[in-house]
Structures are given as structure tokens and as C-alpha cells.
């Protein structure tokens, strides 16, 4: 090789190396910055004024969240600059910006432990354990490995069934509480010419709901099952375990003709409409969609309440599960700018004290702090949700601590459409869980 050629190779190699080192140093310099902000925040953190705070937030934030930001600005004299990120790809959008080393002063994000780990929050967030709201928390959303790194103001989601009361009355059957009940009432309900269950598999996440979130409520008290999977002491592909059982229950429902024929392409919007129109008896979805049922009623809350109900359903016990929503959950990333970090904590402090009851009233949600009370003017669907969330039997959603959960929806759907057996899907999921566990070290 000539000296010229060698020189060219060296230049290319140096450029590639420099590029890689730049990428590496981007991550580590952030770590160094973070060390300056180590230590738990306290209620006595100095309140800053006249500070401009950048917040990454979901474009799906409702008026209630936007009102919260404006009210804080009026109260504090600080300014919150919102960076809209699309709701349907929010997690990916945040991760993309995060991976480049970019940081907001306040981050709206999912308070589930597994999602929090994806941003390495233990090292990248201010510990809020010393703030006043911590002693008033009703659930553990926003906690990671004993630290409170974020606050889930609400709404908190629960996973249950939206059902059409008229369809059940016409069929003359009781409301199911578990998956055996579903199989029992299936022939009677379908004989009236409607689907028992509508699953919007085309949106993928509804497959999670019926195969995981609802079924698994029985098995994840205190998040024990999820943490056992994360620790490797429990396997999701255990032939006698709850995941295989849940997928088998779903498979049986499909084979018995209890699920809509267009399960692979129907969307969650189709499911909501099917229940509202009475072409399906029920659909299993997060409580986040209560407002969409009320929207179908054109503001006639009483009419919707007379037609649609929301109730828990699980493997056997008929209990619900919950998780904090990415909407209304806030974190304070360590940026190295102590004034902004203090102002961001001031926002959390204010939102969990002075501004909290107004926020709860505005969102019509169940409080996550014992300092606020349930709004008095809730529709029946919201009341049903509140009852589930206040029930001590309600358990954390099964996905909270499970590594590699992101693949479950696709695998559950493969069972729903007959592409894989329950055991095959569970076995494949275990390989993804193992991959994610390895990645987390």
C-alpha cells in the first residue's frame, strides 16, 4: 500500500474514531454533570423566580395539564416553554432526543419502573424523595429502587372492561368477573348476533390488555411477579405460569368464536364504537378511553352512563390493575443548572400542594395524593374507575417492572390471529426478556 493510501486510511479511521469518542463522551459528560446535582431534593429547596423552564410534554396533554402549566407560571413568575412531542411515538421521540444528550428541565414521562430504567433515571434524574408530597403518595408510581424520581399527579390508568349494558340485559347474562365467565356467557351473548369481545388488534396495544393487563391483575400484588421476572426467578414462559395461562385463555376465547373476526385489523377506536353501538358486548381497554365514550354521547353524560359501564376483570378474582399515565407524570432531569433544577422542583412542589386540588377537579381524576379529594361531579364511568383505584385489592399493572415488555403486544397478537401457540409466544417473549435483562446488566 502506498504512503498516500495509508494516509487516507488513517484519516478515515481517525474520523470514525473521533466520531465514536464524541458519541461516548456525550454520554459520560452528562454523567459528570449529573454528579453536581447528586443528593435528594428537599422541600426547603430555594424557590426561583423569573426562570425559563423547558418541558418536553405529550402533544396529547389535555386542557387540564395546559391549565396546570399556566397556573404555575402565574403563581411563580417562572416561564414554562413547552416542546410538543407526538403522543403516539412519545417514548421513542424522548429516547431519541435523550440519546443525543439533550435534556429538558421538566420531563413528562411514564412513571413505570421499566420505562424509567430506559432513561437510566437512577443516574439522570433529581431524587425527589425529600419533597413534601412523598409522604402523601397513595401508590408507588414514580418510584425506582427506593427513590422517588417523579410524581404521577394523575390520571392513573386502570385496565378493565367497557361493556354495553343493553347487550347484557338483552342476553340475560350477568357481568363476567373472570375469563371462565367469559367462556360461559359467550354462546348466549353471541346468539343475540353480537360479538362478546371486540379486540382492536390493529392498534396492537389492545392485545396487551386482554392477554396481559386484565388477566394478570391476580398475580401481581405489590408488583411481586414483575419484580421476580426482572430478577430472573420467575420465567414468563413457565408452562404452568400465568402468562401461558393468560394467552391460552385468550386463544380459547378466539377458538370459541367469542372475539371479533377482524381482530387483526380492527383498531381500538373500532372497539369503542362497537361497544357503544352494541355490536360487541365488551372490550378490554385502559380507563384512559372513558372520555372517548363520553365524546360519542355528544356531551350527554347521563345517556352514556345509562348505556356503558366500566368494571374490572381478571383471571379469577375480578380485580383491577393500575399504572401511572405518561400524561400528568413529571420528572426533573439533572442538567447541572442548579437554578433551573430548583425551579423545576418548585413546579413539582406547587403542583402537588397549592395547585393539586384544582388539577384533580380539572382532570376529573382520582387523586394520587391523600391531600386532595375526589371531584363531586364525576360521571358514572369515572366513579367506577375511582372505585377500582381505591380498592385495596387492585394491583400494579403486570408490565411495570418486566424487562423487554415492548414485545408482548406483538406476541399476544400472534396468538390472537393464530400465528403462534400460547407456549410459542411465551417462549419467544422469554428470549426478549432475557435480552433486556442482559442489557440492563
Amino acid at each position: 500500500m502506498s504512503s498516500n493510501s495509508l494516509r487516507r486510511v488513517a484519516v478515515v479511521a481517525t474520523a470514525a474514531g473521533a466520531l465514536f469518542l464524541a458519541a461516548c463522551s456525550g454520554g459520560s459528560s452528562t454523567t459528570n454533570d449529573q454528579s453536581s446535582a447528586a443528593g435528594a431534593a428537599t422541600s426547603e429547596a430555594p424557590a426561583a423566580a423569573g426562570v425559563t423552564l423547558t418541558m418536553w410534554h405529550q402533544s396529547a396533554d389535555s386542557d387540564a395539564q395546559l391549565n396546570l402549566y399556566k397556573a404555575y407560571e402565574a403563581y411563580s413568575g417562572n416561564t414554562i416553554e413547552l416542546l410538543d412531542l407526538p403522543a403516539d411515538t412519545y417514548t421513542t421521540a424522548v429516547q431519541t432526543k435523550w440519546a443525543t444528550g439533550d435534556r429538558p428541565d421538566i420531563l413528562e414521562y411514564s412513571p413505570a419502573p421499566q420505562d424509567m430504567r430506559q432513561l437510566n433515571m437512577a443516574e439522570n434524574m433529581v431524587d425527589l424523595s425529600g419533597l413534601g408530597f412523598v409522604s402523601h403518595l397513595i401508590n408507588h408510581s414514580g418510584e425506582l429502587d427506593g427513590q422517588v424520581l417523579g410524581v404521577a399527579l394523575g390520571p392513573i390508568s386502570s385496565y378493565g372492561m367497557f361493556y354495553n349494558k343493553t347487550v347484557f340485559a338483552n342476553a340475560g347474562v350477568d357481568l363476567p368477573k373472570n375469563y371462565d365467565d367469559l367462556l360461559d356467557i359467550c354462546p348466549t351473548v353471541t346468539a343475540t348476533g353480537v360479538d362478546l369481545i371486540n379486540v382492536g388488534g390493529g392498534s396492537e396495544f389492545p392485545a396487551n390488555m386482554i392477554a396481559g393487563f386484565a388477566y394478570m391483575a391476580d398475580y401481581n400484588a405489590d408488583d411481586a411477579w414483575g419484580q421476580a421476572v426482572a430478577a430472573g426467578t420467575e420465567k414468563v414462559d413457565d408452562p404452568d405460569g400465568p402468562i401461558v395461562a393468560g394467552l391460552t385463555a385468550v386463544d380459547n376465547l378466539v377458538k370459541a368464536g367469542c372475539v371479533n373476526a377482524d381482530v387483526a385489523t380492527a383498531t381500538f377506536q373500532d372497539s369503542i364504537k362497537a361497544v357503544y353501538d352494541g355490536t360487541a358486548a365488551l372490550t378490554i381497554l385502559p380507563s384512559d378511553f372513558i372520555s372517548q365514550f363520553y365524546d360519542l354521547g355528544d356531551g350527554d353524560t347521563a345517556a352514556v352512563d345509562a348505556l356503558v359501564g366500566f368494571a374490572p376483570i381478571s383471571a379469577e378474582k375480578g380485580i383491577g390493575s393500575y399504572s401511572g399515565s405518561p400524561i400528568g407524570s413529571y420528572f426533573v432531569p439533572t442538567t447541572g443548572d442548579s437554578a433551573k433544577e430548583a425551579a423545576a422542583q418548585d413546579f413539582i412542589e406547587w403542583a402537588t400542594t397549592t395547585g393539586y386540588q384544582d388539577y384533580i377537579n380539572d382532570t376529573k381524576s382520582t387523586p394520587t395524593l391523600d391531600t386532595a379529594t375526589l371531584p363531586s361531579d364525576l360521571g358514572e364511568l369515572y366513579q367506577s374507575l375511582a372505585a377500582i383505584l381505591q380498592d385495596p385489592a387492585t394491583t400494579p399493572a403486570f408490565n411495570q417492572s418486566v424487562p423487554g415488555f415492548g414485545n408482548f403486544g406483538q406476541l399476544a397478537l400472534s396468538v390472537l390471529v393464530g400465528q403462534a401457540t400460547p407456549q410459542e409466544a411465551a417462549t419467544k417473549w422469554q428470549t426478549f426478556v432475557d435480552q433486556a435483562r442482559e442489557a440492563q446488566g
Partner: protein
Amino acid sequence: MSSLSSVQAPNQTRPARKARFRVWFALPSMLLVGFFFVVPFIANAVLSFTRWTGFSNTITFNGLTNFRQMFSLGILVHSTLVTIGFAVTTMAVQNLTGLALAKALQQSNRVNSVFRTVFFLPVLMSPLAAGYIWSAVLDPHGPVNSFLSLFVRGDFTYSWLGNQHSALLAVGFVDGWKWCGLVTLVYIAGLNSIPRQVVEAAIIDGAGAWRRFRSIEVPLLAPAFTFNIVVTLVGSFSALDVIFATTKGGPGDATSVLNVAVYRQYGQGLFGTSSSLSFMIALLVIATAVPLITYLRRREVTA
């Protein structure tokens, strides 16, 4: 000697000046290619061999671990096969339909201009919009099945996008439809560049329309075939938007092309394995495009 060198100096510098002049014209393209292709390609190649996740703030080299992991999970082989299946379907749909349309719309007149525009419109449409439209068209209760119901007893409610056997063909067709207009224009240009004398001589010799197409037009369309086949095949390797709008990679993983797998890995904070899959796409493009172009270019010389 000195007078000779003083005479030769301007002659030697003129080509050099010309070369520098040309470099200035090439510079914007070189910068764009460097910034948007070479740098990301090298970065992606390097990051493919690293343990880079959202779970840690540090990036470390891990050799071939990412590739081994993607192989053992079955993602690498499955997604590569699905990608190839999708690309071949799309390429076939675009080129067969595009060539047929080009023949039909070859003559330049007002009517054909209108139809050329109509068939080119999908190219201008957002791939996501095209995907959403076709999701509705191919719905079990959508217009396609309603039309087919006219010819069969009862309601025809086949789920084109929901059945694992037809979903890949269906999304391949949708992507083919989306880009078909571009391919058509290239074929029209190719057909119209064939010397008229050659065709007229064949007519005089008694060659029919099919014989003229097979023996004259197809061989002389070789440059157009080279461009269209390579662009449609290689372009399909990096498809994502149409698939996301129609099936999201499903049902199950029936339409999980490599880019869907990249997206899923990335979405779980596994950036290193995501990079390794992206690198596989780049290798797939190179491994396909280079021999394909070489073969098709040789064929052009023969023609």
C-alpha cells in the same frame, strides 16, 4: 531553460485550475453525501459493535454480540427474509404495472397527459396517508371486499392485511402502487427514446405489436430496466412508513421488515442492537445493488 519554463508554466497550471474549478461545483454534493451518508454510515457501523442502551450512560464495544443476539432471537433471519419478500413484491408490482402503463400512455397527447398525472399523484402523496387509505380500502368490510362480494355468494370479508399469508403481499402491493407512477415515467421516457426508424423497419418487415415489444422495445429499454429495478428493489429495503400505517409489522411478525425490527429494538432503549440491524440493511443494499447493477449494466452493453 528559464525562458522555456516560463512558457510552460501557464500550460501546466491551466488544467490544475480547471480541476479546482470543477471541485467547487462538486463540493456541495460531496458535503451533502459526506454529511448525510458517509458520516452516519460510519457512525452506524461503529455503533453496531457496541453495547449502547438507554439503561446506561456509557457505551462500550461488545464485538459481534449484537448480531449474535439478533440471530439467536430469530429477528435477523426472519426480518431479512420478510424484507426480501416485501422488496421483491414491491419491485415486481411497480415494474410490471409501470411498464404496462407506460405502453398504454406512451403517446404524448392531452388524454394521456391527464392519465399520466393521475397515475403520478400517489407518488406525491405521503406514504402514511397512502397506507391509511389502503387500510380502509382493504378492510374486511371495505370497498375491495364489497366489490368482490358481487361475484361470490354471501359477504366476502377476507382480511387482506389481517391474514399472515396475504399481509406481506398486500403491503407490497400498496407500496408498489404508491411508487408506480415514477417507474411509469421512466419507462415512458425509455420507450420514447427508442429510434423510430428501428420500429418502422420492424413494421415493414411484418413484425406484430408483441414481436416489436419483445424483440425491440424490451432490449432497448435496458437502461430503464436497470434504473427501475435497482431503485425499486433497493428502495424497498428501507421501507417503513407504509408498513407502519397498514399493519405495524403484523399480524404477529408477518410484515416485520428490518426497519420495523430496528424501530422495535430502538423503542426499548436497545440502541446498539438497533444499530446492528440498521447496519444489516446497509449491507443488504450493498450486497444486492452492486451485483444487480453490474449484471444489468452488462446486459445494456449486450443490447
